[in-house]
């Protein structure tokens, strides 16, 4: 693991750039998705408590919001790390995306601030706003549309990278006279934007709800007081209902998402369906694993819902809806079996059946309490979010040259190429296509050697040493001529200079200032008639 080396001018990111982005990205997915789900579940709990005038839902909502505050802060810090890593390791990519979607990034940033403020106010003003409960609940409810809008924006950019479709990459009407910013509505509202937004929204609500239910399940195990157990059971069931309802929407959305990918991101579709690229890692098709876990969740959820509706539990999900979606799942799996392999169908069916049987056993064992099912569904949900995030990135088209040959480190042609290139963009961050392996691949470019001290002029010294602390503008603005005192002061501030260097700098500054003053006085002097 090379961090930096005197002969190697490049900084190597620990454990490779790909791993670092992958880790930070997956961490972000696991945490940020939870935030969105928590916000929605808290609002549902508060509204339920308000209409029933029941404190147990209010108490649970407050505890969930506390975790949300912690999770949101962790997620924000992680997101900053992700941005640092992306922009530092992939400056070309970052420069393109940031220019193409500049204004949306700015709105995103403001939304981050709004979310953090609203969340903080909502939790820390909880007790001071007892008399204004409706206002308090409304403020918490604002988090959901804020999160949705934040999602809306990031999904526009994220889906563009996968399905750029008809985007042209043109200068923005909003960029003023500088012409520095791009905007293309076809880039933002691209083919997979809607499906990605719907899928992620429903998935996050499901994830948040299942995790809240899981935590209630853990408390049910720990608690021995019957009143508390009732409270946790009711809260868990309500969270489970929210989560499972959102979960049921996912296969329908997923079907249309796959349909869009098939026509606008064929390589991604093939990678997922057939198992190519990094989707298969370590000999395991991780998309399949995710689908098997989803099938297990469906089986468990179906059994639990059936038991809840039979016992006339008020928080049970409507069974016709559950059966309809189960039927849809069956049809999807049949369709995938016909296209791919029947092993997939039988594997999913077995996973669902065994998970359902396991759920029935757990419900009987705990005398109808959903604690074990809640915990398992929370774990499964976490796994599907992580695996789903991984396979989505792993299924992206690889960086390859038009000839199809892949040379690691070169030919960084992204899936999208029509982005706006402002004139001001430096050459170093423009995408370059490298057809053949460059000749310098076996040798690293040498670092520019500094001039020997004896050969450095005063100008060299000023431009290399003075700028370590400040710009040269203040030198030009300085009206005095006591450069020996100025340089002495700089040495006192910490600038290390030899006597020779000091003398050269003072001489240069005095001469250049004198030259500048004489030029100005000649300009001011009226010319002789």
């Amino acid at each position: 693991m090379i961090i930096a080396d005197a002969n190697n001018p490049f900084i190597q990111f620990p454990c490779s750039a790909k791993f670092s982005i992958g880790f930070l990205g997956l961490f972000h997915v696991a945490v940020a998705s939870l935030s969105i789900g928590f916000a929605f579940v808290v609002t549902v709990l508060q509204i339920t408590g308000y209409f029933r005038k029941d404190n147990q839902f209010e108490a649970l909502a407050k505890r969930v919001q506390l975790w949300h505050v912690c999770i949101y802060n962790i997620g924000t810090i992680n997101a900053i790390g992700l941005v640092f890593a992306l922009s530092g390791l992939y400056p070309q990519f970052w420069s393109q995306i940031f220019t193409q979607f500049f204004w949306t990034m700015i709105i995103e940033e403001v939304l981050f601030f709004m979310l953090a403020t609203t969340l903080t106010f909502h939790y820390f003003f909880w007790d001071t706003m007892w008399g204004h409960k409706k206002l308090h609940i409304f403020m918490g409810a604002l988090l959901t549309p804020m999160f949705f809008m934040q999602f809306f924006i990031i999904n526009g950019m994220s889906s563009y990278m996968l399905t750029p479709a008809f985007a042209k990459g043109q200068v923005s009407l909003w960029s003023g006279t500088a012409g520095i910013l791009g905007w293309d509505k076809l880039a933002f509202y691209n083919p997979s934007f809607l499906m990605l937004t719907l899928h992620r929204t429903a998935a996050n609500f499901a994830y948040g709800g299942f995790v809240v239910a899981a935590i209630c399940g853990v408390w049910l195990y720990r608690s021995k007081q019957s009143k508390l157990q009732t409270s946790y059971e009711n809260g868990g069931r309500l969270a489970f209902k929210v989560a499972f309802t959102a979960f049921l929407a996912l296969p329908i959305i997923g079907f249309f998402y796959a349909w869009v990918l098939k026509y606008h991101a064929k390589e991604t579709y093939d990678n997922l369906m057939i198992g190519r690229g990094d989707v298969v890692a370590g000999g395991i098709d991780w998309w399949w694993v995710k689908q098997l876990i989803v099938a297990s969740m469906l089986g468990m959820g179906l059994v639990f819902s059936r038991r809840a509706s039979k016992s006339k539990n008020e928080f049970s999900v409507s069974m016709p809806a559950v059966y309809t979606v189960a039927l849809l799942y069956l049809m999807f799996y049949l369709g995938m079996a016909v296209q791919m392999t029947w092993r997939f169908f039988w594997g999913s069916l077995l996973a669902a059946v065994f998970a359902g049987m396991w759920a029935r056993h757990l419900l009987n064992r705990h005398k109808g309490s959903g604690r074990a099912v809640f915990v398992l569904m929370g774990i499964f949900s976490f796994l599907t979010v992580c695996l789903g995030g991984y396979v989505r990135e792993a299924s992206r088209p690889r960086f390859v040259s038009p000839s199809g040959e892949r040379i690691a480190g070169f030919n960084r042609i992204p899936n999208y190429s029509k982005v706006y290139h402002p004139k001001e963009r430096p050459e170093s961050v423009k995408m370059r296509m490298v057809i053949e392996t460059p000749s310098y691949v076996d040798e690293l470019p040498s670092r520019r050697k500094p001039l020997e001290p004896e050969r450095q002029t005063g100008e060299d010294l000023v431009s290399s040493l003075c700028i370590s602390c400040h710009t040269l503008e203040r030198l030009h603005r300085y009206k005095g001529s006591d450069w020996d005192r100025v340089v002495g002061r700089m040495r006192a501030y910490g600038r290390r200079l030899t006597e020779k260097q000091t003398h050269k700098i003072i001489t240069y500054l005095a001469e250049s200032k004198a030259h500048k003053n004489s030029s100005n006085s000649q300009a001011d002097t009226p010319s002789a008639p």
Partner: protein
Amino acid sequence: MKDENMSKQIENITFDDSDAQALEILEEKPEVYPLRDPSEDPRWAVRIIWTWVSIAIFLLLFFVVLLILGIWYD
């Protein structure tokens, strides 16, 4: 006073003794939603919340308008 005690109890919930404290809160009057008169809330807090909610709604609507304009004007 009761509301203050209840508030303190809710605030002091920790993971280790959460059971005991949560039980106290629920056992006080589990069927009664702990609402109080709006005039008992500190005015400064209510003002801050109203101000922030207004700002948030305005900004949300503003962003929605921007996104709609972005569809119309390419």
